[in-house]
């Protein structure tokens, strides 16, 4: 009963979003919302079943499904209201991820044993400010500014700031850390802001496939391990269980990554009919499948890249904000890679 009560708010938000979408006659987004709700209901049923059978995964799957309800509801509500609300939501997402990144890095004055210095604070503030600046550029559809803001002007302004601060010791490292995070979360993830301009459905396509790829990777990984454990010693077993980067994550195998990417591609194919004609051209199913494959592969590596960052910093999760999921970066790590690629693919092909 307590569990059901927690779902009241997300369910109400989803109902509101669905009603708004229906009122505006957005059939495709409404269909997607219903699909997402069906998936959530399915996983809620699965977690109830797991709890009933007292399976070891039960608590984990339940907590994550609950958080999924919230994330999906907030995300879809943001897109069912005013255009500005969607931008503010995405901007806040980028800001939170960036803040989590900077908070993960230890800060201290003694050079050598710490990563950031207290003198990096002004540059970090500047890094945060690139988010509202990018948001504005995307909102007014000023692509030329949007695309140079972070990688050229923020990138050049930070070292100037360092010079004005008269820094030497550790400057190069601080510069690298600050630029890296800003490129990842304000620029790459920030492409979500410009992606809205190509149509909300294109953004949904990317977000939905990236997140579903994450979920699928979990079950595909488990399934493949079960298959491999039944195989005898041999080439097939070696091939199927070959990890991509065993030190980062021994459980992420080439076979699992490829299978999930192909599944993502098939799912993308199924989503193509929901995509509206872009610039008057209906989306080619083959192109949709290719974009899905790109999302599948890049999402896989996004996961591993932030796995690497976490291992380097000796943390398990990037935060504790999302119950059962860890932090925000744990949730958006795939998007950092898939969002810019989706944007470029669609922009190149249809605009």
């Amino acid at each position, binding site marked *: 009963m307590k569990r059901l009560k927690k779902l009241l708010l997300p369910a109400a938000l989803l109902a509101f979003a669905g009603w708004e979408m229906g009122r505006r006659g957005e059939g495709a987004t409404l269909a997607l919302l219903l699909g997402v709700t069906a998936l959530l209901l399915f996983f809620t049923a699965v977690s109830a079943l797991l709890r009933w059978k007292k399976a070891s995964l039960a608590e984990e799957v339940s907590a994550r499904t609950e958080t999924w309800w919230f994330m999906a509801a907030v995300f879809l509500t943001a897109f069912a209201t005013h255009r500005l609300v969607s931008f503010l939501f995405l901007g*806040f997402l980028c800001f939170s991820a960036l803040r989590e990144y900077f*908070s993960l890095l230890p800060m201290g004055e003694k050079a050598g044993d710490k990563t950031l210095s207290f003198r990096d*604070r002004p540059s970090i503030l500047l890094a945060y400010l690139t988010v509202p600046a990018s948001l504005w550029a995307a909102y007014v559809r000023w692509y030329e500014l949007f695309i140079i803001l972070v990688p050229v002007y923020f990138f050049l302004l930070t070292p100037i700031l360092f010079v004005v601060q008269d820094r030497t010791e550790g400057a190069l490292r601080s510069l690298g850390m600050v630029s890296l995070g800003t490129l990842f979360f304000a620029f790459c993830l920030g492409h979500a802001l410009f992606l809205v301009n190509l149509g909300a459905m294109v953004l949904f396509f990317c977000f939905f496939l990236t997140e579903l790829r994450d979920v699928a*990777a*979990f079950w595909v990984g488990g399934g493949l391990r079960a298959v491999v454990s039944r195989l005898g010693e041999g080439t097939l077993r070696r091939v199927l269980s070959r990890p991509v980067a065993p030190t980062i994550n021994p459980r992420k195998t080439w076979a699992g990554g490829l299978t999930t990417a192909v599944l993502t591609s098939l799912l993308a194919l199924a989503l193509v009919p929901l995509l509206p004609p872009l610039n008057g051209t209906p989306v080619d199913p083959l192109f949709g499948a290719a974009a899905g494959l790109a999302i599948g592969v890049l999402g896989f590596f996004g996961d591993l890249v932030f796995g690497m960052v976490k291992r380097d910093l000796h943390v398990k999760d990037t935060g504790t904000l999302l119950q059962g999921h*860890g932090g925000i970066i744990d949730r958006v790590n795939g998007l950092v890679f898939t969002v810019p690629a989706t944007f470029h693919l669609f922009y190149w092909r249809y605009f």
Partner: protein
Amino acid sequence: MRAAVHGLIRLLLLLLFGARAGDPVEDEQAVVVGNHDTHLDVFLLFSLFPLRRVGKVRAVAAEDYFGKGLRGLLARLLFRTLLIPRGSGDPLKALEPVRQALRRGESLVVFPEGTRGEPGVLLPFKSGIGSLMEEFPRIPVYPVALRGVERTLPKGGVFPVPFVVEIRRLPRVTGEEMAAKFGPSCRKAIAQELRRRIAEALAGEENPGPCAGEDRP
């Protein structure tokens, strides 16, 4: 009015610093004790009290710093500051306004370090908190560890910069329990004990355990 302003402040703390007071202080009267690194700390500790009771909470502040000017006025309006002199040589007399407030049933926010100091360094606790706990043995005291706050606005910093801040409220203690542990007239030991608990929570692992790469659905 004060409750509305504090509500707005809490919203800002949540949006900018991701700071949530997970378990609020439910007692009618309580003393909240925290580590002190920035001007944000008092806002964070106030967020532990339910909004409807914010009018009955006071912050204990240094007279030389918060006694005058715009800073003093703002502090008085927002936190109903109780001003005490620093280094007066007579700690018992200096605490008199604080005692009166406790007798009136008001709650307190106290920073026993007495100053913000170096970022991330927990200074020794002044023993005043110990003598208050001996004098009011039944009033619950909550040590609170403010984690990550030293990066947001260290002493000398001009602008607050967003970083994730965690408000970790520790289990309550009372003067009675402390007296049972240390015996009577042990205000220094009590202050040290509070400091030890906060220091432990500050040093505690954020993400416990080694990591062997996990998949997450």
